[in-house]
């Protein structure tokens, strides 16, 4: 399966500040009542973005200046809680191509990487610098460069980090592992054969 090599993600940015933003907040559970991932983008951050009557609350994603942003900035432990892949699916379907945050919850990080959605980390101070630059100029173009491990914004840049296995998978177009896992079938049978409980 030929996958896109994700080496550079460019576009405008938006910052959704805060630590411990959980996947229930990213996509409320009622949006999980579905048998496909279609249309999940509409539910992204729904309950913090909208009132029950559908009118908008103040939220960065509702701010017209940041419409069309491709890179999402946030705080520490982003995506904690439920393992629902619906969360990165909603972020991706909304239009985001990459996330830059202080840190991520483990399951969210893995789910996102497998979808080809890079989750880079940067220091709080550096993220604040980028957020301030975006606030001053919402049309500012950002570029996340996975090989150089930098986030460029205007003429400036900050260092970013991406776990080596994820970076390797993204830049080499191996972020969806199914092809490689299927190639390991013989090894799977051998490993299972050494574990008595795996038999029928």
């Amino acid at each position, binding site marked *: 399966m030929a996958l896109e090599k994700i080496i550079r993600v460019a576009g405008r940015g938006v910052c959704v500040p*805060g*630590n*411990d933003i*959980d996947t*229930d*907040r990213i996509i*409320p*559970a*009622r949006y*999980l*009542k*579905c*048998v*496909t*991932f279609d249309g999940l983008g509409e539910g992204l951050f729904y*309950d913090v973005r909208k009132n*029950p009557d559908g009118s908008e609350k103040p939220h960065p994603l509702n701010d017209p200046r940041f419409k069309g942003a491709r890179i999402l900035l946030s705080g520490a*432990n982003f995506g*904690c*809680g*439920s*393992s*629902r*892949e*619906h969360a*990165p699916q909603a972020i991706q379907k909304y239009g985001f191509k990459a996330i830059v945050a202080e*840190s991520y*919850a*483990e*399951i969210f990080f*893995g*789910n996102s990487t*497998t*979808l080809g959605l890079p989750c880079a980390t940067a220091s709080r101070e550096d993220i604040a610098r980028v957020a301030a630059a975006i606030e001053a100029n919402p049309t500012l173009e950002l570029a996340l460069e996975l090989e150089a491990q930098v986030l460029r914004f205007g003429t400036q840049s900050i260092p970013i980090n991406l*776990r*080596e*296995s*994820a970076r*390797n*998978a993204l830049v*080499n177009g*191996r972020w*969806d*592992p*199914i092809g*490689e*896992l*299927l190639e*390991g*079938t013989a*090894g*799977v049978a*051998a*490993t*299972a054969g050494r*574990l*008595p*409980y*795996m038999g*029928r």
Partner: protein
Amino acid sequence: MAKNLFEKVWDAHTVRTLASGQTQLLIGTHLIHEVTSPQAFGMLRDLKLKVAMPHRTFATVDHIVPTDQFAEPYADPLAQEMMDALRKNCAEFGITFFDRATGKQGIVHIVGPEQGITQPGTTIACGDSHTSTHGAFGAIAFGTGTTQIRDVLATQTIAMGKLKVRRINVNGKLRPGVYAKDVILHIIRVLGVNGGTGFAYEYGGEVFDRFTMEERMTVCNMSIEGGARAGYVNPDETTYAFLKGRPYSPKGAAWDEAVARWKSFASDPGCHYDDVVSINAADIAPTVTWGINPGQGIAITESIPDPAKATAADEKASIDEALAYMKLKAGAPIKGTKIDVAFIGSCTNGRLSDFQEVARYLKGRHVAPGIKAIAVPGSQGVRVLCEQLGVDKVFRDAGFEWREAGCSMCLAMNPDKLVGDQLCASSSNRNFKGRQGSPTGRTLLMSPLMVAAAAVTGTVADAREVFSVAAN
């Protein structure tokens, strides 16, 4: 070389190293439910793949099932659609499905152990973060996303990086009225909601040695709330006694072989841990959360944190945000806070012993006027046992609604939801904003007995006082 359980299980299930550097890890047991699996089956069909080892996947339905309606079609057509999809997918791919008609249905993390499917020394994956529950048996069990469910279905493996291991010792004796739920809320309070990122937690010490399997499950269940993808307890005689005679447990000579094998997976004396944390059991109090993540907990005797006393800007911001959402007053005692709803159930505290322990004290008491109180067994098996033992009658007589098995109000994907900004005393695992079905609903996490104390007094209360626990 001395190895810990995590390393032994990991090594035994390692197929190979992938190009990215991750491990292709064999998954011994795969559990699925209706919410996170339908898209995975869709992906299989798109890729024209089959299920590699259908006998190693087990399904049940838990998140969307109504607990006040058994007959289909369900009032919610979306819930019915998910039910139908799971039924069809299991039939088409040859997967065992513990449907409601089997009498074996329930929350996936209660059904696995109950059926004897959850066994020591195995790897267990499920598209649900509370899969860490199964670690109570000395398994390496973790939640996955839906694409990884596809991977397990198609190959019986996933691509994953090895976790570090933190040993958490809890020594000494728990005080009366302090439960496994308090132990894990205390651990998360001490280590933080992201303290476990990148780690598996190995729980041990005198408290865990004495714990029943159900208590161990309660703690392992909430490992993920501390950021740890997996949590486990080394298998011992308590583990084997629990598993003996269960439907999927080995029988006859195979049983003795299995126990010998299971024992060999326990962490070796002197093995390496990446970190060790020790907690004194006597320091743990009945704990209640006051905020919007499970780390925001305090002892029932403490006051709600005051942002003015925060030592860091970050801490102040998080207290401010939590108090604004929770509509609670900084510096006020948590005890006495008026509640609207009491919920006992979930994969954290929806097992037989949870209901039995509450029933011991609830007998002869009644839910306070105006409080909605619901008790939701974690599985049909738990419900039947409670009914055989008369536990359900104690709950009903006290004014609790006694329901059918499911996840229910833990995440409110079924009709059991908070309304408006109702405040719920809950034995579940998450107090996130909007978690219990209303975008402004509020959750206080606590042990089942503390929920019962809140239900009968109508306020957050100290169960030790309400039920004279110390005297028992």
